[in-house]
């Protein structure tokens, strides 16, 4: 109920959430919305028509149906990767910020190393090494994105661990585990949620990049892999904009929606930003 109220009260969050919800629903009900089987071969290189709304690709697959189904892979890889990154990042950040000491040094040293190494070349390297596949890609992206989350959570936990209610909980005999899960994490939740949305956006963008480079799962259709085929099989040269433009736009639209949600969260937390936007 609170979430619904937050969405209603903030036009940024509302716009972003509606955009994302539409994309998610389309992906969820893809079999009902797609006019054709995206794996069926029709005549190749057809221009848009009533029967094939966005024409067909180099092997004769209906592009509109491909687009509808590709959303499933793009979104689910993004979500899975963001969940992995959030889980690792929140655990590491909370532990590091709360326990301090040697554990903090080790964990934050790891994030420093991971942050210094450029992400995309590393992902390309790892995904080539462990091979393509739905879970492999999600795992690689998740493993690349967790340090940012860990940093953000740690800095929040550092301030929360000094708060009055943590001290009073300790004075009433609460242990570390109890305080971390009951009193520190719930208060860090807003910042985790905002960061999760951003992580999701990065994950989707990275997934699209990997697939565009042809390192994605070859058996699955994603917006990035559609761009890959449009690029490598002559879509760009033949100026078949109905082939390469829609997947690019959909990637852009989902990132846009996610960033709006994140902006809305930040705007709720930081009034200065709101004034800046109104100007």
């Amino acid at each position: 109920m609170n979430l619904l109220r937050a969405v209603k009260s903030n036009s940024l969050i509302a716009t972003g959430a509606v955009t994302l919800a539409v994309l998610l629903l389309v992906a969820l009900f893809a079999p009902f919305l797609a006019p054709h089987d995206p794996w069926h071969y029709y005549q190749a290189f057809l221009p848009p028509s009533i029967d094939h709304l966005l024409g067909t690709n180099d092997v004769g697959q209906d592009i509109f149906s491909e687009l509808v189904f590709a959303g499933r892979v793009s979104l689910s890889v993004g979500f899975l990767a963001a969940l992995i990154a959030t889980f690792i990042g929140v655990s590491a950040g909370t532990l590091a910020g709360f326990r301090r000491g040697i554990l903090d040094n080790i964990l934050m040293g790891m994030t420093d190393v991971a942050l210094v190494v450029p992400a995309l070349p590393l992902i390309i390297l790892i995904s080539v090494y462990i091979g393509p596949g739905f879970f492999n890609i999600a795992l690689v992206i998740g493993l690349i994105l967790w340090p940012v989350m860990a940093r953000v959570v740690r800095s929040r936990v550092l301030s929360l661990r000094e708060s009055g209610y943590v001290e009073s909980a300790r004075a009433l005999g609460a242990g570390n585990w109890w305080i971390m899960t009951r009193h520190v994490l719930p208060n860090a939740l807003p910042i985790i949620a905002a960061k999760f949305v951003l992580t999701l956006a990065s994950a989707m963008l990275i997934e699209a990049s990997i697939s565009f480079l042809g390192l994605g799962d070859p058996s699955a259709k994603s917006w990035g892999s559609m761009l890959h085929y449009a690029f490598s099989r002559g879509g760009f040269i033949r100026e078949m904009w109905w082939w390469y433009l829609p997947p690019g736009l959909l990637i852009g639209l989902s990132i846009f929606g996610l960033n709006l949600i994140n902006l809305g969260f930040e705007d709720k937390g930081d009034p200065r930003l709101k004034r800046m936007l109104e100007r």
Partner: protein
Amino acid sequence: MKNLLCVTGLHVNFETSTGAVRANRGVNLTVEKQERLGVMGESGCGKTVLMLSLMRLQQPGVIAKGSIIFNGRDITGLSENQMRHIRGRGIALIPQNHSTALNPVYTVGQQLGETIGRRHGRTGLWQIIRTRQPGYGSPAYNEIKDLFNRMNFGDERFFKRLLDSYPHELSGGMRQRVLIGMALLLEPQLVIADEPTTALDRATRLEILELLGMLAGKTTLIVVSHEVDAIKSICNRVAVMYGGRVVEFGKTSAVLSSPKHPYTRLLLKSQQFKRGGSISITAGALDMVTFPSGCPFYPLCPQVMPVCSQVEPAEVATGEGVVACHLYHGGKECWK
């Protein structure tokens, strides 16, 4: 076992880049069972550090010397895990600042319920994840209600609304009452109230302190406060602290009506509001790193003697109490 708590020669230091800040320099204190002890002293005299040390929550301060015997056991050497079992059930703390001491994301009911759960030793993963407000009529609900009944919040509707409230929806006085209730729900042997009323207005202060005295029942209580009236009505003994030491300790009636230590006299005088202004003890704060030799109070003392700047006075028994001042060495006052 008459004494519940016995502090002897407690030294607590805070290491800083300019040297160790000596917040407590040999505190001696005894608290008998079912006693109400008041602790007075100016800001920076080491009261709060002492109170936190009693719960071993003085970090980053280090207990350098001395012992804290609670229930016949020296707790200065206990592990963090052993201390966890003493905190709450053995010694409970009522925090100073009511506005930060409650978690903003839980209702009052959830936090009181959490406290009761802790008493029943429910610290499993499931209880940690599931924060539940005690349901209407449940044992926990009734227990909280009994307590708040004694605080004169008998109205059922009001009480239910209180449980459903988030901390920011309550007034300061109400929050402080919740915090007192929270500490008492654990049925601790010793309750430490560290200036429980500093963030409240004067009218509410006295009310809260008297409520505390009443609710504590047979629980042993240590109250840090500057409200002389409240201390007079609640406490049976008073300790006055200055410069990290207890300078005077004795029966409330004796200390407040005929103070022995010159500092206590000034402190009490400074609290009397008179036409023409009250007396203030000025000279800036003590340098807690490089303590002057001798009595820490001698630069300000109206009855200073040559010996005061040389030798730190030992504690002398004077009838009902103890006082650390050269005036009483030899058991008699040697000033005119």
